[in-house]
């Protein structure tokens, strides 16, 4: 049944091409919410074996080359399908106001979503790669046509980086395919590749995927791409596309080449830690709100890579949980910055925003941004905390030093998040000290004369409120009860063969 997420999404894209544009956003909403319903319903099913990558569909596709249309699901895939559908629904809600060529907009958007579902559910290496590459071009058009700030540069950079990563992945996939003469991921995971092949094929494959996950120093597409993208585009990039890279690294590179992974895991951990600290430090100095969030994405994805590098159950499960968590939180942050603030004020410059007393004008936005920032900083009670603590416990066993350095990074994360929060919302002349969050959030806008309020900002619309509440609910729910996901992720991770024994 979970396979229908793919079919429904692609059916939605075809409908969008043929139905009049008045329907487009409704089609998109209907499509994405039904995929959400499906993935949630699949979570509820007890009869599904989520500990193994269990086949759902398997049809011969190109028998001459051993390619199959082969889909499978386990706890990891299912978690990522869930976060994809959550991000998709909310990104549609946050693009409710797209009036320029809406058909095409939602067409590209659904292509990204459908391709991502495909990647997460593919059990055939070629099929996985098809879906993986399918996602590249829609991103280009989403950004180049509907983007802002330097959009053509950002779009092209993003696309070329993705395609570069894709080229590396291509080499790795062909190496695996030619050596083992199979494309079935489960068969490949049992195959014993020669250590010599693993030693060069693993880094190529992993780095190829990790480009999309924003690994330092190949992360530079992420901030520019996020900034240039329209709101929904940033949400998809942060929420879904970066996960594609991390997922590919886990499912393909690490699972296929365990020995190669052991040879290189230290290097991955080093790059991950550099990424966490470096991106956080850079974010501290940004003036553009979206750049701050873009770098925070890189920093958070550093945690995912660190978790993967630990090669033990806790670390890797935490990494998957962090993928979910960052998907939700990143999407929420970009929604506030892109839709709630930028669409109304037409600026993202923190200094300009600080003059606007946005906490009075957009109390709901302030409320959402406070929650998102708290979640992003890793305050207990939100999903970010559950994920990062799991990763750090896992990492403590393998890389104790990395944990210490990461601790510095977390302080920096808190610092830049608070700085952005303060500057964007709580720095008007008559601002109340930013400690008392709750009261601020619910306090009605003060009555001021038009002269004191130079810009009229339209109120937060219903779809925005819905989308924000949806994402907040997701992060809080998982923050309070992470077992819901972890119970399904952990058995699936335990089934993988790269785990260090005794780890």
């Amino acid at each position, binding site marked *: 049944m979970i396979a229908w997420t793919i079919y429904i999404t692609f059916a939605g894209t075809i409908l969008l091409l043929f139905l009049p544009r008045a329907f487009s956003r409704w089609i998109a909403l209907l499509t994405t919410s039904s995929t959400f319903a499906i993935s949630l319903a699949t979570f509820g099913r007890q009869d599904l074996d989520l500990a193994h990558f269990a086949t759902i569909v398997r049809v011969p596709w*190109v*028998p001459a080359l051993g390619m199959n249309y082969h889909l499978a699901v386990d706890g990891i895939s299912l978690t990522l399908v869930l976060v994809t559908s959550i991000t998709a629904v909310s990104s549609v809600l946050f693009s409710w106001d797209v009036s320029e060529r809406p058909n095409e907009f939602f067409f590209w958007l659904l292509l990204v979503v459908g391709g991502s579902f495909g990647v997460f559910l593919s059990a055939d290496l070629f099929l996985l790669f098809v879906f993986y590459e399918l996602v*590249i*071009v829609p991103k280009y058009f989403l950004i*180049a*046509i509907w983007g802002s700030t330097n959009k*053509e540069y950002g779009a092209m950079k993003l696309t070329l980086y993705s395609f570069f990563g894709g080229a590396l992945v*291509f*080499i790795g996939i*062909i190496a695996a395919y030619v050596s083992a003469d199979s494309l079935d991921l489960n068969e490949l995971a049992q195959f014993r590749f020669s250590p010599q092949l693993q030693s060069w094929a693993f880094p190529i494959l992993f780095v190829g995927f990790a480009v999309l996950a924003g690994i330092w120093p190949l992360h530079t597409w992420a901030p520019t791409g996020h900034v240039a993208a329209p709101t929904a585009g940033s949400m998809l990039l942060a929420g879904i596309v970066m996960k594609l890279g991390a997922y590919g690294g886990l499912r393909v590179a690490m699972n296929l080449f365990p020995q190669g992974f052991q040879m290189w895991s230290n290097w991955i951990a080093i790059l991950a830690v550099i990424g966490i600290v470096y991106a956080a430090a850079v974010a501290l100095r940004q003036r553009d709100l979206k750049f701050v969030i873009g770098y925070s994405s890189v920093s958070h994805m550093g945690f995912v890579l660190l978790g993967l590098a630990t090669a033990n159950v806790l670390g890797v499960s935490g990494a998957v949980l962090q993928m979910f968590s960052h998907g939700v939180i990143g999407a929420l942050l970009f929604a506030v910055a892109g839709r709630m603030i930028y669409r109304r004020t037409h600026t993202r410059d923190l200094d300009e925003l600080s003059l606007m007393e946005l906490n009075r004008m957009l109390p709901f936005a302030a409320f959402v941004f406070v929650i998102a920032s708290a979640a992003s900083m890793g305050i207990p009670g939100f999903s970010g905390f559950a994920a990062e603590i799991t990763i750090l416990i896992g990492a403590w066993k393998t890389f104790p030093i990395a944990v210490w350095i990461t601790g510095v990074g977390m302080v920096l994360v808190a610092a830049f998040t608070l700085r952005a929060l303060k500057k964007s919302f709580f720095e008007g002349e008559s601002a109340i000290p930013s400690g008392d969050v709750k009261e601020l959030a619910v306090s009605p806008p003060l009555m001021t004369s038009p002269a004191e309020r130079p810009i009229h900002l339209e109120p937060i619309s219903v779809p925005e409120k819905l989308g924000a509440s949806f994402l907040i609910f997701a992060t809080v729910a998982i923050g309070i009860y992470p077992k819901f996901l972890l119970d399904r992720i952990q058995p699936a991770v335990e089934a993988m063969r790269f785990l260090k024994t005794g780890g």
Partner: protein
Amino acid sequence: MSYLDLLKLAAPEAIVTLTALVVLVIGVTTSRGTAVAGVSPAMPRRAAAGTAASTAFCTLVAALGLVIAIEAILMLPAHANLFHGMLVTSPLNSLFQILCLVLAFFTILLASRETPNYGEYLAIILLATIGLLLLVSSEELLMIFIGLELTGLSLYLMTAFDKTDIRSAEAGLKYFLFGSTASAFTLFGLSFIYGMAGTTSLAAIAEGLAAQSLSPLLFAGIVMTLVGFAFKIAAAPFHLWAPDAYQGAPVSSAAFIASGSKVASFVVLGKIVLIGFGPVHGSADWHAMVAGWSPVLAVLAAFSILIGNLVALVQTNLRRLLAYSAVAHAGYTLLGIIAGGREGFSATLFYTTIYSFTLIGAFGVVALVRRETGGDDLQDFAGLSARSPLLAGCMAVFMLSLAGLPPLAGFFGKFYLFSAAFRAGANHGLLWLVALALFGSLISLYYYLIVLKVIFQTQGAETRSHSILAQNGLSRLTIVFAAAVVLFLGIAPQFLVARILDALP
């Protein structure tokens, strides 16, 4: 061996020849009005109407002739061999003869109303098609050379056919000069091969060469032969004619040069080196090169990929851009032949097939836009998505397939080619070429995306001459069909791969 047998086996060629003659007669007798159109500006309207009718009639006859020729191929026996390989029928040859005829068919549909003297133009296209049929169906050096010459001479004429455009004349002359030099090289090389092997039949050449080592004389013969083919497929550094020919020729000629001529050249190149020169394969493996034809082709491929992609980056004319990208694609396609074997050759055949459909479609779009805006520079395509969403969508399919993105045929084609090349060679020795080709595709994505950006991002405010894009039903149909083929073979590549693999011995 009676001549009746010959006539039976050569029925497709004979039918196309007859069609060419009939079309020529129709053209000459009915379109005298147009022949003087340039001279007397006050041409009566009735003559114009008569020309339109005769054009349509010519197209109809030519198309019909091609369809009958396809029928004739389908009725040929599965295996036959006349005069030691001069005319060979085999599943592979028939498959690609049909493909050449289909490509000619589309070219003719695209060519409608392209030039005055329409009948003559069609007749030359058909003559070129006969050359392609001979090329594909022959496994003997002399016949191959005759096929090459027949195709080449017809294509030179087709290139120079636009008498109102000086660039067309320039392109034709350049193409002719380069082409005749390359032919001379080929003939010289073939004479060396004949001298060494003592025969002109490919299978016998292989036996003859197996007995001897690679002498300098033989190597010179091989290299010279390959030069001629490198010219045909526009591989660097023998590609210099391509940009001018693609840009200056009438659009349908360019489409035919890029598609039909390319397919046939790759088929026959593959046959010559894999069958005829099989014993002197050599090796193109990194650090382990062994003299033979494969390192020569590997160097050609590497040059083509680099030069084609890098120079394409700075083009502002879409047809020139397609020409340089064609150079790069020739490089990719050579990978399969270098890899050799059944898998490598079938990958090459698959790729060149889908490539030709892609280019027919892309040139079709160029032709329509040129008719609308009067130019084919990139800026003439600005806002095409607003003027004609259908054409813009098709162009997106073609460009993305060329860049090698799923779910289009180009993606599968590249995967097939690269995995074949990776598999060949001891210890993945061809990895360097695969990595280079992937690097090339990365570069190419940039310029293909620029084309699409121009088409999709800019929204032209005025919708001028909407009608021109909406007219030309035949051209639009061809374009949509080509796009459908590219999409279909991307989703279901098995359809073609299985056929090619069955046909290969």
